């Protein structure tokens, strides 16, 4: 049996150090970010088709969404 635990199996728990409140006037909850920040600080979980390279897929997403920059997390190549 593998003795090493996959990072996605690790269970973590939050522990409090001190109490504090956040000012609703600044920032947004990530899931409530308004456009264009929603895109500017966004990630797309693409199901890569066979054929094009990871780099090309990232470039297509950039073109479709009319962006200046995209980057992919981990090349998925032959």
């Amino acid at each position: 049996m593998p003795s090493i635990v996959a990072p996605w199996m690790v269970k973590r728990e939050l522990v409090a150090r001190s109490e504090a409140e956040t000012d609703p006037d600044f920032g947004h909850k990530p899931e409530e970010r308004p456009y264009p920040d929603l895109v500017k600080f966004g990630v797309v979980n693409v199901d890569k088709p066979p054929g094009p390279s990871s780099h090309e897929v990232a470039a297509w997403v950039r073109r479709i969404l009319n962006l200046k920059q995209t980057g992919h997390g981990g090349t998925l190549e032959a």
Partner: protein
Amino acid sequence: MTGVLPVALEDATKVVQALLGAGKEYVCVMKIHSEMPESRVKEVLGEFQGKIYQRPPARASVKRRVRTRKIYYLDVLEIDGRNALFKIGCEAGTYIRKLCHDVGEVLGCGAHMQELRRTRAGPFTEAEKSVTLHDVLYLHDRWQEAGDENLLRRFVLPMETALGLLPRIYVRDSAVDALCHGAHLTAPGVTSLDTGIGSRSMVAVFTLKGEAVTLGRAAASTEEILKMNHGIVARNERVLMPRGTYPKLWRSRQQPETKVRFSFSSFVKD
């Protein structure tokens, strides 16, 4: 090769750093070069769990020296004649094509990778909000026509998703802008944190609203941080939030009372 490929947009490209080093999961079809008893194939594949040694293939973007990689699990799903289907959870930088080749060497008859699909990259899986390029094109077009932001939210996930596997540290509003200017995180700013942080662990620093502020390197463990009253808790490695998102609530170091000014004339004798 197909499967999970997280694409970060604009300012979020900074989070790919956290994804490149993250573990991956693949489903792979391996072709064995001659008939082998099923039990033998299972046995050999089983040996490739835990720590393995691997020499990167000739066409690799890294130096070709033998290195160790962790294989978290390797589950054989089906063996049909010379084809073996398995699911593998592995450390970043594991070459599956090479692994198949090496399995063939151990079997003695040779084997190669026939097909590969990535089912996980760090916190991203194919089951959760995975979209095809067609979906991206279609939903983006519909959003441009209808203007409903929720159409974008159907496929654009917050960059925080990419940090899902990192231990978290939450900080108070007053600490945020200093961090955005590159300051290291000190103990008074911390409101809560995850268990299991070790000194030197990579950590993600969040606001109380859950927005990512920085990526950092912990300078102390969870237990130590809980007891600390002052001092650096995490060194800043990457700022993710733009400056000025939160108000500047920190004081600059006091300027000296009288500035010493040199001028050319002061050196010239009358």
